[in-house]
């Protein structure tokens, strides 16, 4: 950092006057953002620059891409959970007018491991014909026994049934003690709880299903459009199929939530192969049913606990067995005791494979499941020792950030007015409150390359290939550069979502902003330094003693407008490049959620009336986008808590709710008063990703609020009316 004294003309109404004054400015260079409260654009509320395009429907998603002459791909998928393909007969299908290609994905003799697994891919001239062709392909199967339920999967000898991906049946643990030590410690506890919590497999439910348009015409290069979280996965993965250099395009994305981290995915793989074999562009869009059955999911969980606390509020001992249920994939549940410390911990982590599509990362992988279980457990212990659940948490957290956040959230929700005796209110409408905490990494990393071009006409374009998965990348790309160069948002044009531009990382682990923002800052700083060298002599100033503000470059008591400055550039303009700067990024995001619910004890209906989430995130790039991100997280946690879950028929081995009518997402009527709070008590002046953490603690907070309201502890999500009514009936039987 350097403090500079610069002579500038006094500005009146945005224009320089003849009067000269001296100003002191801090130049933080490219290794620090400077203090959080000193920014002109970043850390303020900036409306999304692409909002007009998205709200008017002109933003182009992969679903919208149509290229001349393209064919339409379609998949034939297995109706069985476990089977062997015995034959594939394409005779009838090949006779349909408009069919162009049919290729086997699983050859006869190959094994199927889940319902919906792609078996054959077809291409035809229209989507309707492609569907007819797919249905006319006759695939015969030898049906094999399947495993669906946790109980079946836990049976000895069952796991080897599923060798797919070689990932099933894993074991792990992070014990800080032995089971015996934990048992001994539990004997001295004032309160002991032995419980089991379950969460079903959840789905990402992106409004844009996985999709790809492979624009290859048998020539020497191709352009491939994919709805993916990693623009730069496209060139290599598509080129493997197409055999020519590929430009990847991800202009806008209709949601990812982790499901689109697997490169070009199934849609990309089969669109490119069909395209290669037909020398024709092919579009392949997964149907909603396929999206549910074969595009990945978030693992289910069964978590068994025996835990004890002392009456002064110390979590003394925990024996946890965490079963993860990622189908045939991999997917761990975050380790217990989650964000708490316990004196004695014995933990086993076991992966249970079932004949279901494999789990993939899903917004805060493993965390909402671990958090719901641990936060429910903490709540049960708090009530058992008669301690305020907020106080009990504060006594056992691993970081003091949560003290601040729990206090802030408690105030926002009105914790002091909460119901003190669960289930005591007469009803029928009873209210309750609950809380929970969560944590996430959100660190950045190297790999981004940002190129800024300033034209003679004063235009500024910022190019980096990064996709915007919907979190607002475009907006902060502009904001960081505009702020550094003393410009406004409308002065900067962003070019993103294309592999022709500089590299950037995939959007996973909340890492995009923390990786990209430092590189943007670096590029903008380099552009400023380069431009200073050209412009300073024009006003007789030292290049180190000029200041960019208000669309002017100022120094030596003079000011030259941005447009005039740029006119001095050579014909090619000015190019500057930036890369990741580690001191600009940090990691470690903490959050706390509070929920207030109203339970109708005659119908079992739960309505979230108010919800609050407090989130830290270092230096915020765009407060409006972060609030929106927190709101989205809270809404997703309402879905997990009250509505969502894959439902399987264990006998048939099929998912019976693979549609939005039956896999219920919260709608407008389910959204309560949402209070997103950015934790400005966080003094870190670095960028930290907060895409995922807003989704973590909400489910636990709602479950705890339901208990606080009506006295029913529902230990399996979603907390639906039948579970509340069954719980109330059981309570009445016990009390009678």
């Amino acid at each position, binding site marked *: 950092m350097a403090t500079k004294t610069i002579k500038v003309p006094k500005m009146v109404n945005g224009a320089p006057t003849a009067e000269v004054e001296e100003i002191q400015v801090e130049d933080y260079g490219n290794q620090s953002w400077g203090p959080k409260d000193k920014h002109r654009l970043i850390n303020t509320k900036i409306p999304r620059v692409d909002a007009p395009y998205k709200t008017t429907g002109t933003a182009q998603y992969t679903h919208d891409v149509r290229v001349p002459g393209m064919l339409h791909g379609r998949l034939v998928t297995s*109706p069985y959970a476990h089977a062997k393909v015995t034959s594939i007969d394409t005779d009838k299908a090949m006779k349909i007018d408009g069919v162009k290609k049919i290729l086997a994905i699983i050859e006869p003799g190959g094994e199927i491991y889940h319902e919906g697994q792609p078996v054959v891919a077809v291409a035809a001239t229209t989507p309707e014909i492609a569907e007819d062709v797919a249905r006319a392909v006759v695939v015969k199967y030898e049906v094999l026994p399947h495993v669906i339920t946790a109980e079946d999967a836990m049976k000895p000898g069952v796991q080897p049934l599923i060798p797919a991906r070689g990932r099933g049946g894993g074991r792990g643990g992070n014990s800080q003690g032995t089971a015996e030590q934990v048992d001994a410690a539990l004997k001295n506890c004032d309160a002991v709880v032995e419980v089991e919590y379950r969460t079903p497999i959840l789905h990402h439910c992106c409004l844009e299903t996985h999709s790809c348009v492979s624009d290859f015409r048998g020539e020497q290069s191709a352009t491939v459009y994919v709805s993916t979280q990693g623009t730069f996965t496209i060139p290599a993965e598509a080129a493997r199929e197409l055999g020519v250099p590929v430009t990847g395009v991800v202009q806008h994305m209709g949601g990812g939530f982790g499901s689109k981290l697997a490169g070009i995915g199934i849609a990309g793989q089969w669109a490119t192969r069909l395209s290669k074999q037909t020398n024709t562009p092919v579009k392949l869009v997964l149907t909603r049913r396929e999206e549910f059955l074969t595009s990945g999911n978030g693992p289910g969980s069964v978590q068994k606990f025996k835990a004890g606390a002392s009456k002064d509020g110390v979590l003394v001992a925990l024996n946890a067995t965490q079963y993860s249920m990622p189908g045939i994939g991999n997917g761990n549940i975050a380790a217990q005791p989650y964000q708490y410390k316990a004196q004695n911990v014995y933990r086993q982590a076991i992966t249970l494979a079932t004949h279901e599509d494999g789990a993939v990362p899903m917004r805060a992988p493993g965390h909402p499941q671990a958090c719901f279980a641990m936060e429910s457990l903490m709540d049960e212990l708090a009530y058992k020792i008669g301690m305020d659940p907020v106080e009990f948490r504060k006594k056992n957290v691993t970081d003091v950030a949560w003290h601040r956040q729990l206090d802030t959230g408690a105030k926002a929700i009105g914790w002091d007015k909460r119901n003190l005796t669960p289930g005591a209110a007469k009803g029928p409408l009873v209210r309750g409150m609950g809380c929970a905490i969560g944590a996430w990494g959100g660190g950045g990393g190297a790999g981004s390359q940002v190129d800024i071009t300033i034209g003679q006409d004063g235009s500024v374009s910022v190019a980096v290939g990064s996709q915007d998965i919907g979190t607002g990348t475009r907006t902060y790309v502009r904001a960081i550069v505009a702020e550094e160069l003393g410009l406004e948002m409308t002065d900067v044009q962003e070019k993103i979502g294309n592999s022709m531009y500089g590299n950037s990382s995939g959007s996973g682990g909340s890492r995009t902003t923390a990786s990209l923002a430092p590189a943007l800052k670096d590029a903008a700083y380099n552009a400023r330094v380069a431009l200073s060298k050209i412009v300073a002599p024009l006003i007789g100033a030292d290049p180190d003693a000029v200041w960019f503000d208000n669309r002017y470059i100022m120094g030596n008591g003079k000011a030259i407008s941005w447009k005039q400055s740029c006119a001095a550039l050579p014909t090619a303009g000015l190019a500057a490049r930036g890369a990741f700067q580690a001191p600009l990024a940090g990691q470690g995001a903490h959050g706390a959620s509070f929920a207030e619910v109203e339970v109708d004890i005659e119908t079992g209906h739960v309505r979230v009336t108010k919800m609050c989430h407090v989130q830290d995130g270092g230096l915020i790039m765009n407060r409006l986008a972060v609030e929106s991100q927190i709101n989205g997280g809270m809404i997703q946690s309402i879905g997990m808590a009250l509505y969502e879950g894959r439902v399987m028929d264990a006998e*048939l081995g099929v998912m*019976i709710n693979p549609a939005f*009518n039956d896999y219920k997402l919260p709608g407008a009527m*389910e959204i309560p008063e949402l209070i997103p709070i950015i934790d400005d008590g966080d003094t870190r002046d670095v960028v930290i990703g907060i895409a995922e953490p807003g989704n973590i603690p909400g489910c636990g907070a709602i479950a705890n609020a339901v208990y606080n309201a009506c006295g029913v502890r529902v230990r399996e999500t979603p907390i639906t009316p039948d579970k509340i*009514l*069954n719980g109330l*009936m059981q309570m009445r039987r016990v009390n009678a």
Partner: protein
Amino acid sequence: MNAFEWANASSVDNAVKLLKPADAKADPDEMPHAVAGGQDLLTTMKAYIVRPPRVVNLKTIQGLDQIKSDGRGGLKIGATATISDIEENAEIKSKFTGLAEAAASIATPQIRHLGTVGGNLCQRPRCWYFRLETVQCKKKGGDTCYAESGQNKYNAIFNTGPSNIVHPSDLAPMLVALGATLTIAGPDGSRTIPVQDFFIRPDQNVRKENILKDGEIVTEIQVPATTAKSTYLKFKERESLDFAMSSVAAVVELAPDKTVRKATLVLGGVASIPWRIAKAEQSLVGKPLSEQNVAQAAALALEGASPLEHNGYKVPLTQALVRRALNHLNA
């Protein structure tokens, strides 16, 4: 969906002609099919549950969408009047309040603007298994009702077998409670029957939910004049968009001394047809809607319920709805 022929009907007679099956012995789900709003039909066609060779558009029949007075204080509702038309009709809102409430409880505004009264009465069940193309359940000509021993949280608690569906219509229980009739047009002319007699149980014909024969359509619903108060109370798991987990349509006529002259109670979401609970109705006649009498009626309403493994909660839920509906009409 399968390719199909689209035919715009110019009149009711023309629609009936267009709906005449080429093969009278074809599977019931492969007959020509009428469409109006298409909000249910298209979902079944996309899943290949219904596979009509020809789809006959009733929306081109002039005047079939009218809601008119019958001149005696009652209503004549054309079959292609939309759910929104019912929901927003001032006369229905004031005199047949329960019918407007039932309409408002359906789906979403977008669906209500397109969906029609006739279509709502003729919609197919929402049972998970029925809606899966890959599952050949009894309603689709198979030999197993998978809901019986499978996931049956949303299925019927008044079961006659051999299928355990619930009827998904919200207008149906209310129209039955209001004593409405409907007119059916077909190759043999037209007939008018009580709405109650329109619906059939799976033990009468497991492939169908109503008495419409091939080539027949519903053309009009008649709601008789009433001085009774009505209400429709629907419980949805998800308020924004859902079918009834349970619902109650209640019509009560009170004497000046606040005793019940006549009560009609019909349940939705609990049986394969709108489930009239005569015993509960009779228990209220001549009595005030006191807490005790209301509770007794609610208990009688669920007499004979035989829940499946996962839907026992519907018993206390439905009792609560019956109590609330009656208390609401007493207020």
